[in-house]
């Protein structure tokens, strides 16, 4: 499969259709890969595809250090493609300005990351080229099982759980930086005249930041779990996001990342909206 990917990358770069191919190369530590930006057809041999291609490289489509290289092709798993779909919906990426080299994926990590057993995009939903055998989407999964389980706890237990978890936060903002959908030029956390979000790692400051982050991703988070993978102190951040995603699905019948033509519920409003609870 990697040979076909390299061949296509080479063709795209040689023909001048794209200026850069965003993908993965082998990392320096065992069982790691590193995002790589191939600008010369001679360098496509660096590209790899394996179980350790964790990073959601869609992040780089909205980073100026990479955007400045010119039109990209991107090697993307199903979950990465979901992020690209939302970037397209939110006018951050133009569909015609990116070549998606979709790869079918049976899960990353050994053992697989927690997102993989509940994945229904083993075959990406949007692509220009597809590599690997198509895998039919699974229908027997409950993506919100852990959020439902968590809801059964009492408010006191839930508060204590999050108080303990969020007390670990060191405000490194890796959860934001790694997120393919946190692309704001100036984040609310960086607005300091006045400082809306306290930078201190005390309980109030930590709640402040983590709840704002989760809230800003409601109806947008595509559950790629990059925040959780990056978090250096091991906070189960995606549980917050999944709980919000569950509400959005229940209330609006909407899941982000599947349809680039769909109107995202929290950024779209019509007088005829059927939902009673928002009138």
């Amino acid at each position, binding site marked *: 499969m990697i040979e076909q990917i390299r061949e296509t990358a080479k063709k795209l770069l040689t023909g001048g259709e794209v200026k850069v191919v965003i993908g993965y190369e082998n990392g320096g530590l065992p069982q790691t890969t*590193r995002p790589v*930006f191939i600008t010369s057809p001679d360098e496509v041999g660096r590209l790899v595809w394996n179980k350790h291609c964790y990073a959601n490289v869609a992040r780089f489509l909205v*980073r100026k250090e990479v955007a400045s290289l010119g039109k990209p092709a991107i090697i993307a798993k199903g979950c990465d493609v979901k992020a690209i779909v939302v970037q397209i919906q939110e006018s951050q990426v133009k569909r015609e300005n990116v070549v998606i080299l979709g790869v079918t994926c049976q899960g990353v990590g050994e053992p697989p990351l927690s997102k993989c057993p509940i994945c229904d995009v083993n075959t990406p939903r949007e692509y220009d080229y597809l590599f690997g055998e198509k895998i039919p989407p699974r229908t027997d999964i409950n993506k919100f099982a852990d959020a439902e389980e968590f809801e059964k706890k009492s408010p006191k237990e839930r508060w204590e759980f999050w108080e303990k978890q969020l007390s670990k936060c*060191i405000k*490194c903002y890796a959860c934001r*930086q790694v997120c393919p959908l946190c692309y704001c030029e100036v984040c609310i956390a960086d607005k300091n005249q006045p400082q809306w979000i306290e930078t201190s*790692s005390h309980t109030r400051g930590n709640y402040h930041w983590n709840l704002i982050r989760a809230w800003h991703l409601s109806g947008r988070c595509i559950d790629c779990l990059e925040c959780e993978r990056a978090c250096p*102190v091991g906070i189960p951040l995606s549980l917050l996001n999944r709980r919000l995603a569950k509400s959005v699905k229940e209330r609006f019948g909407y899941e982000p990342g599947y349809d680039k033509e769909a109107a995202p519920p929290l950024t779209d409003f019509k007088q005829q909206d059927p939902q009673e609870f928002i009138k």
Partner: protein
Amino acid sequence: MSSNNPETVSEREVQKKSGPIFKVLDARNLKALVQKGLELGCRVFAPVKDDKLVTFEQVSSPDQVLLDGITTRMSPKSVVLPRTEKVFSYKIRKGEIVVENKDDFVVPAIIFGCRPCDAASFPIMDRLFRWDYQDKFWNKRREATLIVSISCLDCDDACFCTSVGLAPDSTEGSDVLLTLISRDQYLAEIMTEKGAEFVEKTGLFDEAGADLDKSSATRAVRQKLGKKFDVEKIKPWLDENYGNKFWGEVTRMCIGCGICTYVCPTCHCFDLVDEAHYDGGAKIKNWDACQFAAFTVHASGHNPRPDQVSRHRQRIMHKYKYYPDNLGAILCTGCGRCVRHCPMEVNLIRILKGISEIETVCGTQR
């Protein structure tokens, strides 16, 4: 344990010249040191398991302590440089402002079971905090902190202490360094008076025979570590290549999170913020990171480090050029945390190895 006179760098060096005192500790008594520390009224910080990770936390019992890992997720620097601390606070009462200075913040602390790379970070940062401005927060905490470290007998692919002039059994920064020299015995190297005082108070150490030596115990790990890059070649290249296109090539995958700086035992930048409420407020000192865009934004809106390439270059320049230029030491102990925990595998070892292997100077534009 704490001394009223600030211990200066030169005093430390004098002590080192007189040589360490050697003692031995029965391996079964290792965790008893934690108990003794608690009994002496110290706050004891040690590696503990927190959900899935091992990190440095204050402990209340020796049973919590876990000593089998290579390095902890977070370094023990927060014992001396907390991630959030109040510089002062004030209350507004009936139109009057009452300032509350917080001068009682020092309770003796023991950092127990850290690795030599973490212990070494403290004297490196002393150079800054005891330079032109004497930082009272750092110095008071530092004076009141005892460091009992344990030599490494294993390493992983991210470790590179030997490449920056340290070793898995360096005594640098430790008040007491323990090395497991046989199955049931630690060799203790007592480096400071503070360390000697603690060892005496515990009553758990015995006299060491003159023939005891730690080098055979740590030989295997030294060999496994090897040298990952030639540190001698780093600074001369950095001196000349601020604008080299190399920087853009090797740091493009950096997403600008603060993980590398926050897990780092030597990164020490902080920000002062005001948190005001209707009835009072506080001036607070928080960790900050050169990897953030807001770190260098001027009031005018101009940002002299406008992209991640320049921010990442700054981190390496600060550690391997500016700090050596200004304060005479590399601001890195090779603990490998930034390599291990970077979500994008930027990998400092790769960059430094790349620099040390550059034969010819590339272009000057990135």
